[in-house]
Structures are given as structure tokens and as C-alpha cells.
């Protein structure tokens, strides 16, 4: 690189005049439909400062020289393992339905078919919203999108499937739970206590990311302020008593799926992450004590492959810088974004029209992931938009596409293949600058909590979703089979699909009645006075902001107070979250 800036500038001007201009004139264009990048695009090549080596600050090139799955890739192929690489990384299959007994039996059946690994529990919306199965709000929803959990007894029934070599100190558990995460974490701790297992040996990840619920997913209970107090208390409790448990799984995924732009996704996720870090510090922890236990679920995705690669690189660099420069972290593990999925297209990129095309789309997402430090997963299966439940065929094609990218295309044999590209480095810089500007806007409002309370973040996402819709309807953004190439000459292509009835529909029909009956039995059998005493104790603790609520919640849980009874006490003290007016 001895050419010098001036020389390249001269050459660029000549190229524009002698090559580009005639070409534009020939096609009668004002502006070129493509861009070309030279050393002039990047503002100097500060490689070590901006990129660095994989596994070293600022982690732009990746968290590690190679990820754990890459080390096992060859073995998996030769021995025919079926790791779930297309979807959620290494964790067990996300699921849950019916009553705790229904779900337990299902898990046992899966185990008898050779499935190992801990549960990745989906809770029904009733549980997610802090109600019991006998609440009027529960009608029709019990056990539907996940398993119903009203009490420690329910929670323990699920775990009857996990004993012996699959006991809870051996396999990790995932809990997709946010607003009442403190109660579920307390149940996990109480279960371990009952089994005589040291809490320090518990592994797993509660989602515990309440802020994105206000911005995107809607299963909130308490106002943002008190919600963050609950987060603080779980953070301190996990850190002190369950150091092997991750504290949360921060998600930009839901934010983007709800309509956020790439910039909003990145800025809001980081703003939320900052709020969680501040909560841990407020709880009296040192940053390196707990930040390594933060995980990210995944950021959002889109079809724009270059932008998504730049996004992953910028995200890693920004988080690392925030931890190091602002929170003065010293442990490199504090600075890493740990996430099971990196780049992907996002479910909202899939189309109902000519749905087999979603396979091609998912491969592009997988390429973006493979080229930005992740498993090249062809996520999601092509029949995602057809309804709830993926077919065996779609899952097979998804897995194979991932394997083709890994073994045949060798996508994951190079770490950060775009490093040093004039184009990609400048795009990464721009992605970072845009997100930083948006992040600063949120910070000026007082941070993530303030920007939720004043409605800014949820409203901004709703507006972006509408803007995107308008762009598609105006054909400013083109989606194949949706707003272009829809003529009579196009044909739809379909394949046979077998959607396994994962869960027994007969059980689903009766789940609500059975769960209500078992809840009534619990309420009859438990020691009512102990329930009242522990709930009153919780109320007293809740009124004192400086007090950690986890011991009191654990006491309630142990005394068979229900999830809603606990949440109702907190509702009374904290109030309920108010939705944002558009």
C-alpha cells in the first residue's frame, strides 16, 4: 500500500469521468445503482483499534478465533449427530404446553427417543402475564403457547423428567420468562433446595429481559421502574447464589420483529443493556462480577446481507467499548456479546406468498451469520409464516441448508472474512455512528427506562413498522412474490408437508380444566396461614426499595403461594404498567 491517497483520488476521478460516466449515459441514469469502495472510503485503516484479532478487544472480528461448535463440526458430520444448528444454537428445543404433567410426559417421551439436554421452557401467556390458571384473564389461554405454571408444585412436576444423570446440576434450563422472572428463578432455587442440590451448581438462562417487553412484546406487568428493581434483585441473587446461571438474555430480536429499524434495534438493545448493567451496580455488584453472566438472545435480522454483517461487527465493538470505557470492566468476558444466534433474516422477512422461497431467504441469513462470527443457521424454516408449527420437511431443509453452508461452501472456515474490506469497514463505522446517535438521544431522555416511560421507544418502533409497510406498498422496497413478480406467468411451488402434532390435541382440550382443578387442590391442601404470612412479609419488603426481594419471594414460593398471589402483592405496591398511547 504505497500508492498514497492523492494518487488514488486522481485515479478515482479519472475512473468516474472515463468509465462510470459513459456507462451512466449509455443507460440514461443519473446515479449508479451500485457502489464501489476504495481505500478512500475508510477513514484510515486503524486496524488494531477498530477490528483487532478475534477473541480480543474490541471483538469486532469475533468473540473467539473459532466457536465451540466449529471445533466439533467434523465429528458431528462423521457420526451423524443432529445438533440444532439451524435454530437456537446449542440449547434444547423450545417448547411447553398443557399442564405441567402433560409437558413432563412429553419430555420423558422425547428422552426415551434419545433427546438429551435440559428443557427450554415456554410458559403460557397466563404465566407470562403474572396470572394463575383460574384468573378470568386465563380463559382459553391455559397451556396454549407454553406450559401453565401456577406454583412450585407445578414447577416441580415438570422437573420430574429431570433426575439422575439429567438432574438440574447436570443439564442447563432455559426459561422464556420476563415480567415474573423473579418468581420462576425463585422456584428453580427452591427446587434445588428441596433436592439438596447446591445452588451454585445450577446452570441455565432465564430470559429476564423486561425492557424489551415494553418496547416490543407486550407481556409486562409492573411499571418500568419497579420492574427494574425486580431485575436488580434477581441479578444480585443470581450473582451471589447461582454464579453458574446466566442472569438474562437481552433481546433486540423482538424489537426488530416489532418493526424497529436496524439502527433502533442496535441502539435500544444497547440502551437496555446499559440499564441492566446500572441496575447490577445499584445492587452493589462490581461490573466484572456479573456482566460475564449477561447473554443476548439475538438481535434482529433482515434480508440486507451486507448491513447485517456490519451490524454484528458494530454491535460487538460497541458493547465492548461501553463495558470497558464506561463501566471500566477489565474482564474480557464482561465485554463480549454472548448469543446463540448471530445474523439471520428475521421471521418478518419470510413471506406467505410462494413460501418455499423462504428457504433461499434463510440461506442468505445463514451466510450473513457465517461471515460475521456465528453458526450459518438457515433460520427460520420456510413454512414459518404458514401458521403455528414447522413441518418435518421444512426443518430437514433448514438443517441441510446449514450443513451445506458449513461443509460444502466452507463458509465458517474464515474468521471475519470481511475484515479490512474498504466497504465493510466503512459500513460498520456508519452502522456504529447511526446507532450511537440514536443511543445518545435515548440517553439524553434519561436512558432506556425514561424512554419507555415517556413512550419514545415503543412509539418509534410502531412508526418504523408503519414506514416499512408504506415503503412496501409504494414499491420503494421490493419483496419478490409480494409486491413484484406477481404476474400470471409466475407459479407457486409447494411440497408435501407433515406437521407433526407435537402436542396431543386431546390433552390440549382438557388442559385448562385439569390445571384449574389441580390449582384448587393446592389451595385446599396448603397451609393458608403460612401463605398469608409470607405474602405480607413480601409486601413489607416491596415497600422498601433498598431491600432485595428474592428471599421473600423464595419464602412465598416455598409456602406454595401462587405466581399470581405473589404478583398481586407486587401489583398492589408497584402499580401496573400502562400501555403507551400511539
Amino acid at each position, binding site marked *: 500500500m504505497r500508492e498514497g491517497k492523492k494518487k488514488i483520488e486522481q485515479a478515482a476521478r479519472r475512473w468516474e469521468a472515463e468509465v462510470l460516466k459513459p456507462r451512466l449515459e449509455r443507460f440514461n441514469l443519473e446515479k449508479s445503482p451500485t457502489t464501489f469502495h476504495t481505500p478512500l472510503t475508510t477513514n484510515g485503516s486503524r486496524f488494531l483499534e477498530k477490528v483487532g484479532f478475534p477473541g480480543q478487544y474490541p471483538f469486532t472480528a469475533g468473540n473467539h478465533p473459532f466457536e465451540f461448535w466449529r471445533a466439533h463440526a467434523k465429528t458431528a458430520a462423521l457420526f451423524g449427530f443432529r445438533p440444532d444448528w439451524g435454530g437456537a444454537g446449542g440449547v434444547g428445543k423450545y417448547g411447553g404446553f398443557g399442564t405441567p404433567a402433560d409437558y413432563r410426559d412429553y419430555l420423558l417421551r422425547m428422552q426415551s427417543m434419545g433427546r438429551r439436554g435440559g428443557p427450554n421452557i415456554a410458559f403460557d401467556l397466563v404465566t407470562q402475564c403474572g396470572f394463575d390458571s383460574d384468573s378470568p384473564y386465563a380463559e382459553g389461554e391455559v397451556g396454549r403457547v407454553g406450559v401453565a405454571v401456577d406454583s412450585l408444585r407445578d414447577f416441580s412436576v415438570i422437573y420430574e423428567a429431570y433426575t439422575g444423570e439429567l438432574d438440574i446440576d447436570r443439564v442447563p434450563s432455559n426459561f422464556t420468562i420476563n415480567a415474573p422472572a423473579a418468581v420462576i428463578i425463585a422456584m428453580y432455587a427452591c427446587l434445588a433446595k428441596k433436592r439438596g442440590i447446591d445452588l451454585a451448581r445450577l446452570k441455565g438462562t432465564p430470559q429476564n429481559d423486561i425492557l424489551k417487553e415494553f418496547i416490543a412484546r407486550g407481556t409486562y406487568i409492573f411499571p418500568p421502574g419497579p420492574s427494574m428493581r425486580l431485575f436488580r434483585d434477581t441479578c444480585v441473587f443470581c450473582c451471589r447464589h447461582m454464579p453458574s446461571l446466566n442472569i438474562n438474555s437481552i433481546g433486540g430480536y423482538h424489537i426488530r420483529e416489532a418493526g424497529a429499524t436496524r439502527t433502533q434495534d442496535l441502539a435500544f438493545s444497547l440502551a437496555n443493556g446499559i440499564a441492566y448493567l446500572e441496575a447490577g451496580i445499584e445492587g452493589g455488584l462490581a461490573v466484572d462480577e456479573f456482566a460475564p453472566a449477561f447473554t443476548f438472545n439475538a438481535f434482529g435480522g433482515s434480508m440486507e446481507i451486507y448491513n447485517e454483517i456490519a451490524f454484528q461487527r458494530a454491535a460487538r465493538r460497541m458493547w465492548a467499548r461501553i463495558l470497558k470505557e464506561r463501566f471500566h470492566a477489565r474482564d474480557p468476558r464482561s465485554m463480549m456479546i454472548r448469543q446463540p444466534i448471530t445474523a439471520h433474516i428475521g421471521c418478518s422477512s419470510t413471506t406467505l406468498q410462494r413460501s418455499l422461497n423462504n428457504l433461499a431467504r434463510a440461506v442468505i441469513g445463514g451466510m450473513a451469520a457465517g461471515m460475521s462470527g456465528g453458526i450459518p443457521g438457515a433460520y427460520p424454516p420456510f413454512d414459518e409464516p404458514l401458521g403455528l408449527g414447522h413441518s418435518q420437511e421444512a426443518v430437514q431443509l433448514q438443517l441441510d441448508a446449514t450443513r451445506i453452508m458449513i461443509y460444502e461452501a466452507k463458509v465458517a472456515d474464515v474468521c471475519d472474512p470481511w475484515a479490512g474490506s474498504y466497504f465493510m469497514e466503512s459500513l460498520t463505522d456508519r452502522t456504529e455512528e447511526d446507532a450511537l446517535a440514536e443511543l445518545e438521544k435515548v440517553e439524553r431522555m434519561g436512558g432506556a427506562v425514561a424512554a419507555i416511560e415517556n413512550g419514545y421507544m415503543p412509539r418509534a418502533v410502531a412508526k418504523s413498522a408503519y414506514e416499512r409497510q408504506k415503503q412496501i406498498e409504494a414499491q420503494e422496497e421490493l419483496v419478490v412474490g409480494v409486491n413484484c413478480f406477481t404476474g400470471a406467468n409466475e407459479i407457486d411451488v409447494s411440497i408435501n408437508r407433515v406437521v407433526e402434532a407435537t402436542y396431543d390435541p386431546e390433552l390440549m382440550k382438557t388442559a385448562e380444566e385439569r390445571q384449574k382443578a389441580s390449582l384448587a387442590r393446592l389451595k385446599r391442601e396448603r397451609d393458608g396461614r403460612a401463605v398469608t404470612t409470607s405474602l405480607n412479609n413480601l409486601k413489607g419488603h416491596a415497600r422498601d426499595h433498598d431491600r432485595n426481594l428474592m428471599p421473600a419471594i423464595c419464602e412465598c414460593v416455598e409456602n406454595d403461594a401462587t405466581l399470581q398471589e405473589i404478583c398481586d402483592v407486587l401489583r398492589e*405496591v408497584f*402499580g401496573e404498567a*400502562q*400501555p403507551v*398511547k*400511539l
Partner: protein
Amino acid sequence: MEEMPRQLIDAARQGSERALARLISHVEDRRPGWKDAMKAMYPHTGRACVIGITGSPGAGKSTLVSEIALRLATSGLTIGIVAVDPSSPFSGGALLGDRVRMRGISAASGVFIRSMATRGVLGGLCQAAKDVVRIMDFARKDVILIETVGVGQDEIEVVGAADHVMLVTFPGGGDGIQAIKAGVMEIADLFVVNKADRGGADETASEIAAMLELSSEGQAGKPPVFTVSALNGDGLTDLTAALRGYINRKKAGPVLEQAHVRREILGILEREVTCLIRERVASNGNMEACIARIMAGTSDPYTAADEIIALFAPASRIKGGMP
């Protein structure tokens, strides 16, 4: 199929929510017979206590309104709520989102909520809102709460027409105080600092009290300032007690004020006359002819207005010149 207003009127009086709702649409849309319907209802109105609620965006008005409504409803009063939001000046449509903040009010609590768009074009939001209030009054609502965003002159007039006006602000919202300065202060009978759960409410309350001290010098009685949290219920008992005072006073007997009656007649006339003129000039081609002359440079908009008015009232002496 359109029900006759007569049937709707009888059913609404007897407590049918559906009839009340349809009657409101009928009058709001100015469908044939609307004025006769209002004439028929008028003698049976004047009983309800009407409270206007305004304040800057973000003050938590809707949540507060719904909490107040619930408290009043549990003591056996029937409640109507009119929630006014602006129409889009571009499409004429509107996104009415106040119900989102009124989720505490279940179907069973006997509170009737009606979202209303300003509709703008023909002016006269104030009269339209008055009509809706009057219909609810006729349908035996004891208390009617009208909520608007206190930004436009139109909205201020709407709450100004109520028996009492409540101004809602919140701590830290610098524009909360600004809104008060913008001219609502004079018409407010009581001030509420909401969101006391966040801290800083007492400072805001004393700031308002100080402003009131200045402006009400020499007058008897300053409006009270309440500090509340609609979120956790703090201070709502006192506020509701104050409102009950208003409601009881109103029950003692309706009071007609000359100024209000005069304003209302003029309000109805303004809208009627404007409609009449618009309709006439649109149908007889006068408007197009005037526009053509102005475009050709042979006339001007002032002359055009005089000419059109002359068509309606040839004998009138309305002219543009000085008297």
C-alpha cells in the same frame, strides 16, 4: 338500515347503550333530523355535572380520568366520558387511542366512553362536543368527563364550556407549566399534579400555587392544587371528594348562564351558516366562477366573498369598508 332518531331517543333515555351510541353518531355526522333530535332532548338536559379535563401530552390524563370515573362509578353515579383527539389534517382520519389508557374500566362498570375526533374542516368542535355531552346528559349520565389535549384553541373552548375545568400536569414536564401559561389557567377551577410517584411533584405543586397567588390577587378564593398518582392511587380520594362537591352542587339545580346560551346559539349558527354557504356555492357554480375571475386577474378574494354574501342577503349592508 337506519333507525329513526325517535326510536333511538326513547331507547337511549331508557338506558340502551347501543341507542345512545347510535344517537351520538347520528348527531355527530349531522345526518338528516339531527337538529330535531337535539330539540327533543334539550328539555330533559342540564342535570349532569360536566367536568372538562385538559393538560399537556404525557400528563397521564386518560389514566387519571379512568381512575376518577371508576371511583365515582362505585359510589353509584353513572358516568360518561368524551375523549377528544385530533383528526389528521391530511387524510381526515384519526387514531383515537384514549381507550388504551382506560383499561381499568370493564364492560360491567357502567361507564360509557366515547372517543371523538376533532374532524376540523367545518370548525365547531366545541358545538359537536357539547352535543355529545348533552346526549349523554339526556341518557341520564350523572357526571360527564370531557378530556382533550390542551393545545389548540378549539380544545380549550371545549373544556371551557364545561361546568368545571381540571388542569392536569406532571412533575419535571417543563411544558406542564408552559401549558398553564398558554391561557388555560384562567378557566381552570382545579389543578392536578399527576405522577406524584416519580418525585418532584410537591415542587411543581408549589410552583403552580405561587403562580395562582399572583394571578388571583384581589379575587376571592384560589383554585385548589392536588398532588396525585393515578398509578398507585395516592391522593385520588381527596380529588374525588372535591369533584363530589361539584356534583352535589349541580344536583341542587341546573344553572343557565346568559353568556353561555348566547355563545351556544352563535356556535350553532356559525357552523350552520358556513355549511349552508359551502353547500350553495358548491352546487350553483358561483365558487368556480369567482375562482376563474381571480385566476384571470379580474377579481380578488375579498370581492368574491362580498359577492357571495350578497347572494344570500341582498339587502344586507355587510361590506368590506369602514363604517
